[in-house]
């Protein structure tokens, strides 16, 4: 799929197919992502949505095909189910491990950021993962079920942050089980074992 946006390409995926423990999840898929684009990726349980994001984040090596980011593009990955943070450290301490810049939380209260992650609720963990990813200022952000445990207010704030990111020339891929609001999504597609389908205006299959 290539997204019809009049801006530069940031990610190109060519014939990628992934497996987990020898079990093939999806057939070869190809798409590209331009700057300013927010993609929504839907699909049933176990089809490989999360695995696809982990492949693109460089965390899952059991795949065939190729993908590449344009020079200078950096990648961020945040998940709503696995925080990827040290549970006994606070968010400030977790951020300190990956960044030397000062950190001001956007979606969480500063007081909360001083508490160990293990005391966070599921929604707060998802936001903490997002905050930690955000501080790295990635160009392409990969979000896996990030809104699953969020209340409406936090969800809207997160959508606004992603929308602003896309407007600044970044790009995002959302994996979700719920319908994402039309105002932030440029293209929607469904992942099945057979590949990608269901593209709406804003994108087309390659």
């Amino acid at each position, binding site marked *: 799929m290539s997204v019809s946006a009049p801006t530069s390409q940031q990610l190109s995926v060519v014939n990628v197919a992934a497996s987990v423990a020898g079990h093939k999840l999806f057939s070869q898929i190809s798409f590209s992502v331009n700057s300013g684009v927010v993609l929504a990726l839907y699909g049933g349980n176990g089809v490989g949505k999360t695995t696809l994001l982990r492949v693109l*984040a*460089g*965390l899952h*090596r059991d795949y065939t095909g190729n993908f590449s980011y344009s020079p200078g593009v*950096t*990648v*961020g*990955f945040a*998940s709503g189910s*696995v*925080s*990827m*943070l*040290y*549970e*006994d*450290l606070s968010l400030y*301490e*977790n951020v*300190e*491990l*990956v*960044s030397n810049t000062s950190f001001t939380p956007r979606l969480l209260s500063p007081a909360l950021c001083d508490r*160990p*992650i293990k005391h966070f609720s599921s929604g707060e963990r998802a936001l903490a*993962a997002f905050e*930690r*990813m955000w501080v*790295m200022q990635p160009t392409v952000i990969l979000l896996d079920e990030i809104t699953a445990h969020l209340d409406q207010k936090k969800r809207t704030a997160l959508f606004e942050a992603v929308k602003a990111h896309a407007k600044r020339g970044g790009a995002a891929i959302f994996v979700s089980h719920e319908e994402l609001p039309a105002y932030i999504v440029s293209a929607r597609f469904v992942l099945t074992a057979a590949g990608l389908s269901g593209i709406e205006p804003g994108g087309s299959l390659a």
Partner: protein
Amino acid sequence: MTGIFFCTVKLLRKDLIIETRRAELTVMSLMSVIGLSIILSYGVWLAGISQSQKMELAPALSLSVLFMAALSVIGKFSEYDEKSGALDGLLVAKVSSDALYLARVAAIFLLTSIAAFASGLVLPTLLGLVPSLLLSWHGALVFCGVSLGLASVGATLAPIAVRVRAGSIFLLTLMLPLVIPLFFASCEILSGNPSTRDFWWTLLAALDAVYLAAGLWLHPHVVR
């Protein structure tokens, strides 16, 4: 280079903060040292070994206790990393793999050094001996050399072991062939023939260097 150094220091600090808050691994290693020392000293007492024989045996027994205590906790660092995908979080953030490895070696080294100090103190005391290993420079140096070797091997292999079934047994199986030469070399230095001591010192230092270099080379492949 400076970047890797500061990153290593930050990651080591992280491990120490977590250990300070959890106090899990230090307590586990000290309990292992005390438990094994009690069992071994009881066995020595049952065998009716003379005081001079005890003095000859003490270094090897202390090192055995250290090895067993260290092996019981080395994998725990990586288990904790796997929990919540914290290591993945660092990898996505492009944290240097060399820094990750060196920080982990340093953390295991510190933990193993505490176990080494405890084993050098507790076992001789239970055997009714003066803990002389801790008072001699070459005793302390051998414990440091052994701790470094254990840390280098452990930091390399533990990330593999946490991803397989029966990981702790798997880790032990992988580590044993590599740490047994360390054990022999250190035993020979502490209680072997003084004329061959230089050879064993060289072997211990060479093993440490090889394990550390191999770990630095393998770690990026292992963690992914």
